[in-house]
């Protein structure tokens, strides 16, 4: 049944499940820990080429928690997955599943994690 729904509805459905009722169901669909590390790197580095490595914006808008405070989760996830026509924002469906797009949107709204790993923080 879900297969025939438009992408935005499907994402809304998943989002609703995750946020409202069944966090366990979302957790079951969450990307694996290894994939989460890849996704964090992808957002920081590749999305960062337009949105800034610190997600403070560039050609694309800021994606900080504050900047996204009034944005609906499902629309963020749909934008990540399918892009936004008329703007330079491409759909990332060739590199992400819908679940992964949703996971990214959720974590952006909470304040996106920093990359862990070998790269040390710059001294300020």
């Amino acid at each position, binding site marked *: 049944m879900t297969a025939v729904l438009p992408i935005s509805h499907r994402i809304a459905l998943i989002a609703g499940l995750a946020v409202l009722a069944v966090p366990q169901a979302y957790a079951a669909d969450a990307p694996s820990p290894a994939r989460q590390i890849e996704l964090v790197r992808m957002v920081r*580095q*590749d999305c*960062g*080429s*337009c949105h*800034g*490595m*610190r997600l*403070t*914006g*560039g*050609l694309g808008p800021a994606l900080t928690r504050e900047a996204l405070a009034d944005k609906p989760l499902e629309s963020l996830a749909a934008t990540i997955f399918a*892009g936004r026509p*008329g703007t*330079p924002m*491409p*759909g*990332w469906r*060739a*590199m992400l599943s819908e679940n992964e797009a949703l996971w990214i949107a959720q974590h952006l709204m909470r304040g996106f994690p920093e*990359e862990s790993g*070998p*790269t*040390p*923080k*710059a*001294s*300020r």
Partner: protein
Amino acid sequence: MTEPIANRRRALKGLGALAGSGAAALAGCAASPAAPTSSAAPVNVGTGDLGLVIERARGAVAVVNTSSPRVLGEVIGLGDLSHASVVFSRDGLYGYVFGRDGGLTRVNLLTRAIEQRVMQAGNSIGGAISADGTLVAAQNYTPGGVKVFDAGTLELLADIPAVIDAGGPGARLSRVVGLVDLPGRRFAFSLFDGNAIWIADCSNARRPVIARYNDIGRQPYDALVTPNGRHYIAGLFGEDGLAMLDLWEQPPRVRRILAGYGRGEQPLPVYKMPHLRGWAVAGSHAYLPAIGRHEVLVVDTHTWAEVARIPVAGQPVFVMARPDGRQVWVNFAVPDYHRVQVIDTPTQKVVSTLEPGKAVLHMEFTPRGESVWISCRDDNRVEVVDTHSLRSIARLALDAPSGIFFTARAARMGF
């Protein structure tokens, strides 16, 4: 401005290696960079074979030597360097580093010290230096516009807000892209949100005179100026084609080139915006990245008609001519950014596909092009490739390297 001890140690070590001996005498130079004494300054060392490599994640730049490929040292504390770029003073002693966070930093390549640093905007995308070396200009997204600084002091001389629909109900600032230096103490730039090209005449830098060219096409995303300073070309994201201004015409007018190169086909997703700066003009042809197509477009620089399109391995990001014009090197947007392709210009064919490392972000030729340095972000290294044999000749460990900038840029218009 206080440097952490570790950095000072590195600087000292580097200086010692650079000068061969007398590291102790140089200590004062590294510790108080603002007032080097003549006896402490490195002697008999030029900067013509030096450069800066951005280590984007660490907010640092590495000072490198291209004659014997190696890292001489590092300057830290430059803020958010995602999408950072550098221009050089005429004497090749200073690099001006433009950071994403609006930081503009003047770095001395020999002492490897920060000489000045200002936070000039909230969100910045790069800059340019005037032909006479006296003015540095920064292009900004937030607040949208251009700021002009005294190259010697970084004193703000002029603020040029990129106002769209001035005085109208929709008055707002546009994000600025494609800033280049032009002859005659001028800077040209494009307004992504304003579909315009502006030229600021900074003969009197405190009172720039702006010429505005409107309706050039939708969403200019970057631009270049040809090596002779005659043609300013802005790539358009919002439509198929590029906008070109012939600056030798009186008055200049905007015309469209390569209109409809996409032939109405559905564009492929553009995961990273191409960069036009660092023009690829080779002989009488210019090589330009297509938007949303895995092609390099070739245009005749006399007629500005398309003469060829070359299929390549992904969405081109940088399309750069080796200084002699015999080769054009191309790198790509994610997910094809492990590849670099080499186009042979006489035959206009891809003659080699290299895989120098993961996440290739930038390439820079040595001044006469015998080698090219390629930043491989996800492998944390820069690969140095001989452009004749196409073999790797050196490998430098650097943290998430992105832009590579050699001092030879100081002598080239539009760099």
